[in-house]
């Protein structure tokens, strides 16, 4: 369990360190190191969990089971690679005069703060604390969204703040209802602990839990970006600094979904029905289809990919909602590959925008000509996210489709329609950017594309073969969530 | 022995083709109140052409000079598979009626290429029109042929004819339709009135002649001979498929002679009918040809349908 504490305390130290001593030249590199150490700690945690099964800290404040441990590693990994990307990126922004030293300090400090909130969401055993951490994540990032202080960024940050704040307040109401249901059957102090709730789920009042779940779904669903609660998401993603977009898309959305799934497990246990699942499916499918259509109308490259994030979150929500081992497995896999791919894409998008000096897609042209690595990175990343094999996104979408065919065959055409429309929406914008002649005076920039390559390589690997330990891990998580092993 | 007979029949075919043309011309002249040339005139023309040194356009390539040989031998091969005076000859098995159509296509392909080779407008025009008409004629022809082959359940001409012979006189509506279709196709494919006029060099109407405008000497002879062969092939097809009586079924001299006589008679009658129609009918505009050929196709289709509905329904 020490590992879990380490995972939490390193970012905490990071916040303090950067807040008070974050004005040095090599801050970016230090940020990388903080994240690297955290990653090491999470690996240790993994080894612990793999050896001992579910870990419960003394006092039951924290729980690490097969479901969240892999999200923890994923979080740490993407945190690290994004930090690697962000160091030269932010330096470049500073040189352009877009940012001051002070804001960089804020940025790095809040980067750690965000990571801390994420780890806390994942590790905590207390549903209330989970809520607190989720709100904390909003608070940590809201100033980062408005980091550039442009009117648009302030507008985006305000919307992010208000919509997520109001949204998440609903989740708190849901949590209170949950607590209310829990105190009726047991002791008060431990009543919000997930491990306790899960064990006693059958005794909870199903009606209350259903109402509570609605609040949770609306609340955390706002964070996931489910249509029609998604409106803050494209704004916040497009106006903040790109590394922020990468972690928001790659991590925050996942963790919000994680919270929803945890709650769904409770509701399923209590109601023995499928209402929660059906709600999730509905929201997921709606988000998926609407976001796919939105892709066609985008002009800003980061907005484009944030809608793509909504779309993929829709798929995952749908899959988790469908339940069943196959869909759950697929959703878990999709979480992983989507995070990896999307954060890789945002890295290349950031570079592309720096290269062209704009986020307006109509003015980004000929990336492959100017800087082949960036162009190819973006192109391959898009191919991957659009669900082409042999990348992992395909695998997960394939499994989702298959599960849909098994359980709800008449929904499968809708799903396919969405995939097709989304693909067209993405590619009609991406292709002109990477191909063709480059505008005059567009010069290569200094870029670190290792994170992109590593991410895409991992996604490729997951598409070709899921390594045994990971498969085992996913299967354990599937077992935990859905109650049975995939096939 | 059989093989020898096959070769002899083929040679006979080749040898008789100009005669049929001569006979046709003779009939036509008489019908039009003109003085007819000798029946042997086509032979004399061919001989004269063969003796002459050919004149070839400067930029003609090997396609132009070799095409006549290819076209001629394609026609000879076609002649080898069509039973003229006897059925059951071994060559008939080497190629069936579809291959026969293939031979025609082969010849046409090179004829059109030769037309294009010189680079004159006429050549191109002829090639274009020839390919157009043949494209339309081919389905009509196959429709007619299919009617026959489905009745006989074979595409082997020789066997099909035997089948018709064995059945004796059966009045098949399908055959009537198919025969008319085939006749219409034959007229179009051999470049007769009303589709094309073999005797004219009016530039706006010519098709076949436009392609061979540059040919001379032995090349022209081969091409002319080939087209005479084609005419005779179609004639024999019509005569021997639909009215096969008289054809030799064994290889006795008697039977063969009788067969020769029979086929000559049938061809002579067909030629007279063609001559009459050519005298009575005017050549039609190029873009009316499609209607003409659609009608042929329709007949073929009707033949097919009546075979299916009236004759073989289960």
């Amino acid at each position, binding site marked *: 369990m020490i590992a879990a504490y380490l995972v939490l305390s390193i970012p905490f130290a990071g916040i303090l360190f950067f807040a008070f001593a974050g004005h040095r030249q090599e801050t970016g590199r230090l940020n990388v190191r903080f994240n690297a150490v955290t990653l090491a700690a999470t690996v240790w945690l993994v080894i612990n969990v793999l050896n001992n099964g579910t870990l419960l800290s003394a006092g039951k404040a924290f729980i690490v089971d097969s479901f969240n441990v892999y999200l923890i590693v994923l979080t740490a990994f993407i945190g690290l690679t994004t930090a690697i990307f962000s160091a030269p990126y932010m330096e470049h922004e500073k040189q352009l005069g877009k940012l001051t030293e002070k804001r960089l300090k804020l940025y790095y400090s809040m980067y750690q703060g965000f990571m801390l909130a994420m780890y806390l969401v994942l590790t905590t055993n207390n549903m209330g604390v989970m809520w607190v951490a989720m709100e904390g994540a909003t608070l940590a990032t809201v100033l980062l969204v408005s980091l550039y202080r442009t009117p648009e960024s302030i507008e985006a940050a305000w919307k992010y703040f208000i919509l997520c704040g109001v949204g998440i307040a609903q989740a708190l109401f849901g949590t209170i209802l949950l607590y209310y249901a829990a105190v009726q059957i047991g002791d008060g102090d431990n009543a919000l602990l997930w491990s306790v709730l899960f064990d006693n789920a059958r005794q909870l009042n199903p009606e209350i839990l259903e109402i509570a779940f609605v609040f949770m779904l609306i609340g955390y669903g706002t964070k996931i970006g489910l249509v029609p609660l998604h409106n803050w998401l494209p704004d916040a993603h497009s106006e903040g600094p790109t590394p922020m977009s990468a972690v928001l898309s790659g991590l925050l959305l996942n963790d919000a979904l994680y919270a929803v799934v945890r709650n769904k497990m409770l509701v399923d246990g209590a109601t023995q029905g499928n209402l929660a699942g059906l709600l999730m499916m509905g929201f997921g499918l709606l988000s998926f289809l609407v976001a796919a259509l939105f892709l066609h109308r985008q002009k800003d490259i980061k907005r484009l990919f944030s809608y793509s994030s909504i779309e993929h979150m829709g798929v995952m929500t749908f899959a988790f909602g469908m339940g069943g081992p196959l869909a759950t497995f697929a959703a878990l896999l999709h979480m992983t590959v989507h995070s990896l791919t999307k954060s890789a894409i945002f890295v290349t998008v950031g570079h592309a925008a720096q290269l062209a000096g704009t986020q307006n897609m109509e003015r980004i042209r000929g990336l492959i000509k100017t800087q082949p690595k960036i162009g190819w990175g973006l192109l391959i990343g898009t191919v991957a996210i659009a669900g082409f094999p042999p990348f992992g996104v395909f695998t997960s979408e394939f499994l989702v489709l298959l599960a849909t065919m098994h359980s709800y065959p008449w929904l499968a055409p809708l799903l396919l329609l969405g995939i097709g429309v989304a693909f067209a929406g993405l590619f009609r914008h991406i292709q002109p950017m990477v191909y063709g002649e480059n505008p005059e005076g567009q010069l290569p920039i200094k870029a670190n594309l290792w994170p992109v390559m590593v991410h895409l390589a991992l996604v490729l690997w997951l598409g070709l073969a899921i390594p045994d330990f990971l498969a085992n891990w996913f299967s354990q998580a599937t077992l935990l969530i859905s109650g049975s092993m995939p096939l | 022995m059989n093989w020898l007979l096959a070769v002899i029949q083929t040679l006979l075919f080749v040898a008789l083709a100009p005669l049929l043309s001569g006979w046709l011309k003779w009939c036509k002249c008489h019908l039009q109140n003109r003085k007819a040339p000798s029946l042997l005139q086509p032979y004399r023309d061919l001989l004269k052409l063969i003796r002459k040194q050919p004149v070839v356009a400067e930029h*003609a390539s090997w396609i132009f000079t070799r095409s006549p040989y290819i076209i001629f031998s394609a026609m000879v091969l076609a002649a080898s598979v069509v039973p003229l005076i006897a059925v059951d000859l071994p060559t008939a098995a080497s190629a069936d009626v579809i291959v026969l159509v293939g031979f025609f296509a082969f010849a046409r392909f090179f004829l059109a290429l030769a037309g294009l080779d010189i680079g004159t407008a006429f050549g191109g025009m002829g090639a274009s029109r020839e390919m157009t008409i043949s494209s339309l004629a081919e389905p009509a022809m196959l429709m007619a042929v299919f009617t026959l082959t489905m009745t006989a359940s074979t595409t082997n001409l020789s066997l099909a004819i035997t089948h018709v012979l064995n059945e004796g006189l059966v009045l098949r509506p399908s055959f009537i339709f198919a025969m008319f279709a085939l006749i219409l196709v034959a007229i179009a494919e051999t470049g007769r009135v009303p589709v094309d006029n073999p005797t004219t060099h009016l530039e706006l109407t010519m098709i076949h002649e436009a392609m061979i405008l540059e040919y001379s000497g032995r090349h022209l002879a081969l091409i002319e001979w080939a087209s005479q062969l084609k005419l005779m092939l179609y004639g024999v097809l019509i005569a021997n498929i639909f009215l096969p009586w008289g054809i030799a079924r064994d290889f006795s001299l008697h039977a063969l002679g009788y067969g020769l006589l029979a086929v000559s008679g049938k061809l002579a009658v067909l030629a007279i009918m063609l001559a009459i129609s050519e005298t009575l009918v005017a050549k039609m505009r190029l873009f009316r040809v499609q209607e003409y050929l659609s009608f042929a196709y329709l007949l073929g289709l009707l033949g097919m349908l009546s075979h299916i509905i009236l004759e073989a329904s289960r």
Partner: protein
Amino acid sequence: MTILMPAYAAVLFSFASGLLALMTHRRPLLESLCLRYAARFPGRIPLVGLLEESRYPIRLRQAVFVLLGISGLLAVLAGSAALVSPSAVTDQIGLGLPWLPWHVRFDGLSGFFFLIIGIAVIAVSVYGPGYVRAYQEEKHPFAVLGLFTGLFVAGMLLVLLADDAFFFMIAWELMSVASYFLVAFQHENPANRRAAFLYLLMAEVGALAIILGFGVLAGFSDGLTFDALRQTNLSTGWASIAFVLALLGFGMKAGIVPIHVWLPEAHPVAPSHISALMSGVMLKVAVYGLIRFCFDLLADAQWQWGVVLLVLGTISALGGILYAMMQPNLKRLLAYSSVENIGIIFMVLGLAMIFLANGFPQLAALGLLAALLHAFNHALFKNLLFLGAGILQHQVHSLDIDSMGGLIKRMPQTSFLFLIGCMSISSLPLFNGFVSEWLAFQTALQVDVLDNGVLRSLIPVSAAALALTAALAAACFVKVFGLIFLGLPRSRHSEKAQEVEDKGMLLALKLLAGLCFFFGIFPTLIIGALNTVAKQLIGQVLPNATLLSWMWLAPVSAQNASYSPILVLIGVLIATGFTFWYLRRNPDTKTMRRSAAWDCGFGGLNARMQYSSSAFTMPFRRIFAKVWLIDEQIDKDMQGAQDMDVAAIHYRLQVQDHSWPKLYQPIAHGINAAARLVGRIQTGNIRVYLGYSFVTLIVMLWVVSL
């Protein structure tokens, strides 16, 4: 050693070729490695010489294509081995999903398509080095071309090996995506980008349909392996849905009308050897998919499906060739002609299915055989023609048929080889294209055994349509060959054109042309091998396929129909030889006199008087006017007093595909309109957004309280 070894090796070699191409810009790295190695073992490095700055790119390219060629050879080897081995070989590869490793199965059908791919790849690898030399490295990096070529070939081979739906889809999409990058290779041209996008979009849609098709099967079975899918017991309704989905997916890839539109856009813009692979081979992989799905996985074929295939095939065949005829761009024309040939294949497959469903497996085997043989033949001659088109583009710097002419004198070898391709594709006797069409006709003519009157009348009609197609194809390729190679040169480039110098490029053409002729004369060789496929798929063989001897082709029985190409060839040789010898005996007239062509007395015959492509096809345009969207305009420049004199006339002709305005544009408009509609929900006003949350919450609460 199993026959899978060469198959795996073929895949690996094509991968290796792709990876090797990535080394294009790694010369310094390799050099330093070699130097380090050399320092340790002096005097043992033959490789260092290859790394010289000047020779490295050439050597690398050659090495890449050598690897590709080896892959092709191995594919041919594996394919032949599979065709002679009586049963399928299966294997598993430890990749894929944890509970579903990649299943591999190599049977006669896969083997046959391996053979097709192998031959094409060999030709391409011989042709490639000479062809890619023309590309500037900065503009068109070889690394990209080589990498994706390797992946493309590997993808196609893997599709054939796949024995579970998941692996199949991965391989399938690998093939699609890799070829997308190849289509987009020369991306400076906006038209190319557009074509590439369209291609990828259609590939995606098709793939989704296939996935759904597999999904239907998998929904009723307990696994994704083909074995499990074969066992599925589907109701007719579900089976029909699966069939339609598969048809949509594979048909889209194969390019049947009306979902063919990507094909004439995408195939021409890729480099020619890639076009050859795409048009010649990739479409066949789609055919393979359809056969595998409909004849192997779907247990009980329905005759209605056969009718669908037949009708779609007929439409594609006719539509394809009519569109091809109107194209002024050679590669577009060839691409449309691929649509035609795929149509023919689909027709025959439809016949096979009809016979199979009606309980005549032997006739079904005949149809299947004809379809497969046509696929094989089409691969040969289409490859030949595309590679030839590449040479033309190389030498004439254009693909516009109307700007060529007279090349037969300037490029004698190419023209001869191209002629063979044209003759094969026009299905003239003695060449391979004829054999498969002949078999197709023979299949259609067996209709008499059927009871169903509709079928009995439908099939002959479609056979007549096939005849029309063949005749139109001949017309089309007369135009192609005549306008490109015959007549007078129509442009300066074609006047200056010369025979291609690279031996390899010509060798590739010779190889393919030789095969076209060889299999035109000895079709029995391949048909015999194809019997293995029919046996494994349908469980029936043709009793008389190689009746009498290898000389004769008699698919049903000798009484029914027979064709002996070798005898025909002998006959042609004798007849031609004899006439040739006989007519040229006379030494006086043996030589020919050359003189100017007749010019109607106007004087000065010039190239502009020749028939152009649009002139040649004018009669067809009139007759089949409804098939195209024709935009014909004649502009007259008037001058002089009161503008009465015509100074110049401009003729402009645009021929467009009907499926654009009828099918694609409505869909595109629909999506844009839907997106605009959806866009309205995002107004930018935060109060509206809050309203959404509020309403959602209320509605959801109401829903749960119900």
